[in-house]
């Protein structure tokens, strides 16, 4: 009798373990869209890199703006012509530095796209629906700003336009 009770408990525990494994496997299947290399390598890693680069670009832009403002605050206005030139140069520096908003905005759009994909997959998982596998990255002419080291320089662009070969 006692042995029979033990067998029943073992059988019940075994069935519970099997159920747990099934649930875990089921969950993993639902998360496959986020676990595949096309998502982790191409999108998630890129989003992480885009965010790091965006922070650096913002720091560089603010540094450039502050340097220009500091330079202008030390201008000697006793020579008005020279002072005017220095003010114009400082304004030009600030104007160029403000390009960072466009670059950072485009990088953050990439990060937002990746976060939206994760949010959508998790929402489907919570609702018990199977998520669609992440689609492999498509060749596109809309890629946004390149990451450092991957961008083509203006000189290379000029050579390409002139009919020569560009070098990244």
């Amino acid at each position, binding site marked *: 009798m006692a042995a029979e009770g033990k067998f029943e408990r073992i059988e019940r525990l075994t069935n519970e373990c099997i159920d747990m494994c099934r649930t875990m496997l089921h969950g993993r299947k639902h998360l496959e869209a986020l676990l595949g290399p096309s998502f982790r390598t191409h999108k998630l890693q890129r989003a992480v890199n885009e965010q790091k680069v965006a922070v650096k670009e913002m720091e560089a832009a603010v540094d450039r703006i502050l340097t220009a403002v500091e330079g202008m605050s030390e201008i000697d206005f006793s020579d008005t012509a020279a002072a005017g030139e220095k003010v114009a140069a400082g304004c*030009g520096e600030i104007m*160029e530095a403000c390009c960072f*908003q*466009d670059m950072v905005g*485009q990088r953050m759009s990439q990060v937002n796209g990746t976060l939206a994909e994760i949010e959508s997959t998790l929402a489907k998982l919570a609702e018990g629906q199977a998520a669609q596998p992440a689609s492999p990255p498509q060749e596109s*002419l*809309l890629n946004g700003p390149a990451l450092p080291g991957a961008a083509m320089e*203006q000189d290379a*662009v000029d050579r390409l*336009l002139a009919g020569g070969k560009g070098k990244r």
Partner: protein
Amino acid sequence: MAVDMKMPILIVDDYKTMLRIVRNLLNKLGFTEIDEATDGTDALAKLKGKKYGLVISDWNMQPMTGYELLQKVRADDGLKSLPFVMVTAESKVENVMAARQAGVNNYIIKPFSAEVLKAKLKTVLGDF
């Protein structure tokens, strides 16, 4: 032939900051007639309604990209000879080649300096 500094220029970008920057740089170079559009569709409507001497356009915009705008401009008998400069962060060889094939007059990579903009405009328009 001298460049007409009063010729209307259309700048196209979906970032208002970039429109302001390019407008200010053009003003600094001496150009005074500058209009703005926020994507290709908006730009095309403006190009059909007024005679411009130059278009300076971003690439990555919705619903119509700068590249699509360039193709439409080159396919339009009334606009096909309009000087068109792309100013974009898209810096892949494929992008430059596609723009070149579509008939772009010059291609500037963002972020750019006032000096680069001036040099490229001189290449397209002549000395000013």
